[in-house]
């Protein structure tokens, strides 16, 4: 197993771990961390696409082009991606903070529930329940006995 494959596997592994954190955890902070891992993994994957086994860094010194060099473009790209990811993570942490301040919990289930209740309260509605049957049309009178 050469280095490239290993790193490729590592990138995928990072993504998998991140995904697992995102999906399996109900904790908001863990989800944000999972997201960070995921993005790192994706960035690594992108960088790896430029990787050539045994190649040198793409630095052209004195006009001498190395015989084999890694693709410089993904490296340039990944810088941007990392910056963006950083920004998103910062924003995410900020939001998490806000949410925790408001609801006092990191649990997704609880947050979801509280949010739904807030939305319903604001609209002046009861929480949704399967007991409630909507009228198929407004003012539809209940059919009486014998009426067809």
């Amino acid at each position: 197993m050469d280095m490239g494959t290993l790193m490729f596997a590592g990138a995928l592994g990072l993504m998998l771990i991140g995904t697992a954190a995102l999906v399996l955890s109900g904790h908001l902070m863990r989800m944000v961390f999972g997201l960070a891992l995921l993005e790192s993994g994706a960035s690594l994957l992108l960088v790896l696409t430029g990787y050539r086994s045994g190649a040198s860094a793409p630095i052209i010194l004195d006009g001498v082009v190395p015989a084999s060099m890694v693709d410089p473009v993904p490296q340039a790209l990944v810088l941007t991606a990392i910056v963006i990811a950083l920004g998103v993570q910062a924003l995410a942490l900020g939001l998490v903070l806000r949410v925790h301040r408001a609801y006092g919990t990191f649990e997704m289930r609880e947050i979801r529930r509280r949010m739904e209740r807030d939305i319903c309260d604001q609209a002046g509605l009861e929480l949704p329940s399967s007991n409630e049957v909507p009228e198929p049309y407004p003012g539809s009178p209940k059919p009486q006995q014998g009426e067809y």
Partner: protein
Amino acid sequence: MNNLILLVVLPLITAFLLPVIDRFSTLAARWSGPLVLLITTFIGASAWLQLGTGAVSLELGGFRPPLGIVLYVDQLALLFAIAVSFGTLLLWPYGNRGGLRQQTLTLLLAGSGSGLALSGDLFNIYVFYELVAVVSYGLAVSLRTPAAFAAAIRYLIISGFGAALSLAGIALIYDATGTLNLAQLAQLAPEKLNDLQGLSAFVLLLIGIGVKAELFPVNTWVPEIYATAPKRVSALLAGLVSKLAVVVILRLLVLIFPQPEAHTLLLVLGILGVLTGELAAWRARDLPRVLAYSSIGQLGIVFIAFSVPGEAGVFAGLAMALHHLLIKPALFLLAERWDGSLAGLTGAAKASPLGAALFVLFSLSLLGIPPLPGFWAKLLVLTSLAQMGAALYYTGAVVIMLGMVLEANYLFRIIARMYQKAPSTGTPPGHGRLDLAISSMLGAGLIAAVFLLAPLADRLQGIAAQTVDVNQYIEAVNPVPTRNPI
């Protein structure tokens, strides 16, 4: 023509300068945003007139493609760029609603949105897409309620997940082709991306970008955000942002991934989107969520349309998308004061007759009632689906129709309520003057479209033809023949 870069740059710069301007003059800060948007709209419009039916590519910084950053300007891109400028102008937070932050974010949205529409490069698309995403998180929390924050973080998680996946998809593409320039990709795609890797990349990109495009099933954020964000923001997200994502998907589909599997995937997800969206809307109990679910359904129709390969599908899908672009913001603006429970809307027509009438008009067009434009768009979708003849496409058509039946039921349930006699407990509120004015404007546009149907249809067909013309794209960009960088 070259000043089209201003469409992207000007709003971005202004956005960053806004706090500075605000230091000197609050008034100037308040009006500089609309002014910039007006200018960009004007620039876009003049470019539209200049462009005709051609297509050009703008190279930034003097680098030639494929390495240089390229703005590709054809009718489709320009149309949506103008729509972004004009749309944000219409939905600008006038009257200093939400303060400076809102204005900044809106300007950022305008800039990044234009960039998204105009980009001719996959990575730029990614960048602008992330920018749009970040801006929309910011906009979504502008009410700063706990629920808004909670919804936004949920939105962020799912969107970030999608973005990371699309980044992985980009990596796969780059791995296969060694380039991210769309034109070059279009050249290389038939030989290099017509395999499992290419399709996997498409799946990752589709799902990733689909988050913004309200693609099923990565749209669970939609009802939450639209219920907690201000309706102006919902209008922006549902009207503009989703369409930009749709355009990106369309570009990818047309240029890089013409495989039947890609189309099938889109079709299946579109069908499921229509089904779930319309069905969920049937039981929704407040207007914002009705509109949110309905928006999911409508975008499902757009995806179904795009799943038809060739010009017909693009034509139909574009018509649907543009129609939705026109209607949804207007409906959301009407929902600004009507955001309570549906039961609270009883007698609303008395309080705001014009608003109610506009609501009826938009609902009718949304349903596709002839001779309103919505009908023709839907007719195009259906005929193109029927032309395909395959069972799955027929299923799509049937599902669209079922969706219409459901939609008719729930929309007119609301309308019936509005026109009932008001309860004694108090009438629902009327509309803000500005919301009403903008909605009326859009409504007038809709009605004008009825009378200009034939020229509009011809133009749109031209756009569709241009969009599917891959060679024109390649020629316009004219990238340097591919060269193995290693």
